[in-house]
């Protein structure tokens, strides 16, 4: 029994830390003001450090990282309040490519020259993963026609390729779609974390016969299960950041002639946060050390874990804002940015209520 990180994991931790700790609030604002809400040069730098390759299998030129290895990166990104869409535009499509056994697709993502957004969310299904309003049909030349709509397509304006979920002859199907294809109409909008998303309408978009990724609905759920775990890891990093900053703040901030950290109500509030954070870490460990990586039980366990962690990360964020007083509600301190990222992550792939329900029924 051992909960310590390996040498390699510590190496990835320090690499991620060096990359992400350089962004202060002013830099964050300037990057978010760029077209598309992110900097593609940063994406290439992140790739050069191996932070994308780690998610791909060795036969696809990757580093064969485990889910635990990826969690170390996600948590470290969270701890530094990173604005890089590593989880949604990196780990997500790369793990899909891995499972599909698609070398050409996967290895092309690893140098950061291409950015892929996964278009999986629909208004019609709320947090459900089985698409209802997107269809693929056969066209005349053994290719496909794509029709329908998606929203919450993250970093859509910078994407070269969209991975779109839909149904083909009533069955789940997922296809690569060039982002500049004819028939795509996108409304760009800002999300909680300052990134840009797209609400996309697909109208008779022509796709080649080789556009389909060979992945079943169950496999798609397996990948989402992993991504749920990575959301947890990033939320734990963010929660640690919030707690650290708040502890430092209450030691310095004086009111009524003393540091507010000397008040018992502040101390007990922070102990509650600390206690929840330790429990969040523990449940993440349990999930990472599970023997399973597929099937309903695994999906339920990852969703239960995310329900637990999301709810608590939210509590820690609200406490951090509260204990920072009026400073906490400005756009100039880290806590608000961390809170907004937690709000996004705790809802990504399904909120706590959604996930708890699935866990309660299936675990």
């Amino acid at each position, binding site marked *: *029994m051992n*909960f310590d990180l390996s040498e390699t994991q510590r190496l990835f931790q320090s690499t991620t830390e060096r990359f992400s700790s350089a962004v202060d609030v002013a830099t964050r604002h300037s990057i978010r003001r760029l077209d598309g809400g992110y900097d593609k040069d940063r994406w290439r730098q992140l790739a050069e450090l191996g932070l994308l390759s780690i998610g791909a299998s060795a036969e696809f030129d990757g580093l064969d990282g485990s889910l635990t290895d990826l969690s170390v990166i996600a948590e470290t990104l969270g701890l530094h309040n990173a604005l890089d869409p590593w989880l949604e535009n990196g780990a997500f499509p790369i793990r899909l490519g891995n499972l599909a056994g698609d070398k050409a697709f996967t290895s092309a993502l690893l140098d950061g020259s291409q950015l892929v957004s996964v278009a999986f969310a629909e208004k019609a299904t709320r947090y459900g993963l089985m698409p209802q309003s997107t269809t693929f049909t056969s066209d005349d030349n053994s290719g496909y026609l794509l029709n329908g709509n998606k929203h919450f397509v993250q970093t859509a304006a910078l994407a070269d390729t969209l991975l779109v979920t839909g149904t083909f002859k009533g069955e789940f199907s997922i296809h690569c779609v060039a982002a500049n294809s004819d028939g795509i109409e996108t409304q760009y909008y800002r999300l909680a974390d300052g990134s840009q998303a797209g609400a996309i309408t697909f109208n008779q978009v022509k796709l080649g016969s080789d556009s389909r990724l060979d992945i079943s609905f169950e496999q798609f759920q397996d990948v989402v299960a992993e991504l749920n775990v990575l959301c947890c890891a990033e939320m734990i990093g963010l929660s640690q950041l919030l707690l650290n900053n708040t502890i430092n703040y209450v030691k310095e901030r004086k009111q009524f002639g003393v540091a507010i*950290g000397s008040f018992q109500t502040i101390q007990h509030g*922070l102990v509650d946060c600390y*206690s929840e954070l330790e429990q969040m870490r523990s449940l993440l460990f349990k999930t990472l050390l599970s023997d399973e990586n597929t099937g309903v039980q695994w999906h339920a366990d990852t969703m239960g874990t995310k329900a*637990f962690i999301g709810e608590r990360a939210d509590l820690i964020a609200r406490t951090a804002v509260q204990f920072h007083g009026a400073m906490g509600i400005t756009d100039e301190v880290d806590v608000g940015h961390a809170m907004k990222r937690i709000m996004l992550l705790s809802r990504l792939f399904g909120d706590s209520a959604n996930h*708890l*329900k699935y866990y309660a*029924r299936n675990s």
Partner: protein
Amino acid sequence: MDMNLSAEDIEFRDEVRAFLNENLTDSLRTGLARTPGVFVEPDISLAWHKILYEKGWITHGWPVEDGGMGWTPMQAYIYEKEVALAGAPKPAPISLQLIGPVLCRYGTPAQKQRFIPRIRSGEDFWCQGYSEPGSGSDLASLSMRATQDGDKYVLNGSKIWTTHAQHANWIFCLVRTDTAAKKQAGITFLLVPLDQPGVKVTPIVSMSGDHEVNQVFFDNAETSVNNRVGEEGQGWEIAKFLLQNERGGSCFAPKLLVNISNLKKYAASYTTADGNSLANDPDFEARLAKLKLRAHALEFTELRIQADIANGRPAGPQTSLTKLISSNLAQDVQTLHNDLFAYEGLQLPSERPLYHDDAPTPVGSEAGQTSLAAYLNGRAATIYGGSDQVQKNIVAKRILQL
């Protein structure tokens, strides 16, 4: 990071299982299941104690040189988990988990020789003299006096909330030997025989109707100076060592997980107003799921502490954290336990014990009959061993450094 069971671990688990199968009788299981109190009575605990003693497993968590088993943290966890799954009672925790380890650490060779074999065999039954009527959370304000008179101490004062003092023949006490010193510095740790004219034990009945705790009065009672553990004034250090053992290095989660899975079984035989099974009611399911997640998280918090200890990183104030988490979780499990029985959960039989043949017949289920008393006794969990508020003060000061 790994959590793998080695071949030896699996062999060990099978050995524990086989042992429990063979030795844990139905009457012992029933004794625990039908006890609403925090502790089982000696007729149950000592019977099981004897079996474990004969097996050589009675003091598995102790230092090896004093009778410990030298199990790895994984083995200790496997053992606690199997014991919880099997529904075994806990043998005399005050003797085995509190005073035993104190004597291993601070006792003189003569004290060890005199007391440890009798603790291991169950011949001596100990109780704990910490709290006093005037000092609860502020333990260091205690005022029971011990004055040295030749080769003995003369004791005056009173201890309260003393669990099972009515069954015990020894009590370990924190006493004040120096009234001039700073309050922690004047405290000494003494072992006192209960069977003497200067000691009187009076019962305190809990709101559940159980008699578990007592007040103990000392009126010129005596104990030999040979029964002082450590030096005069060293009592507070020993007290803190003991409290850390009381609070953690613990294994609460396996038992809580068993209790939680039982809730689902009980709920299956109750219906909601619309005639559906309570077990499938969305609100019930959600409450149960939340408890289960909390218990799984606690399970790994405890395992992380075990792993730290095994890697030479002592638990220290982390035990305040597990005490906080586990006692609150235990209460919330008891709350759902009681809620699910609806009207049946309001029965509060005054007879004890409830595992004998002459116990009253339950209205509804057996689990429903003991539910409320267990719930009421469970309120103590966030008060004893240092209240929630005291634990939070400790974590704030020693971990968060506020």
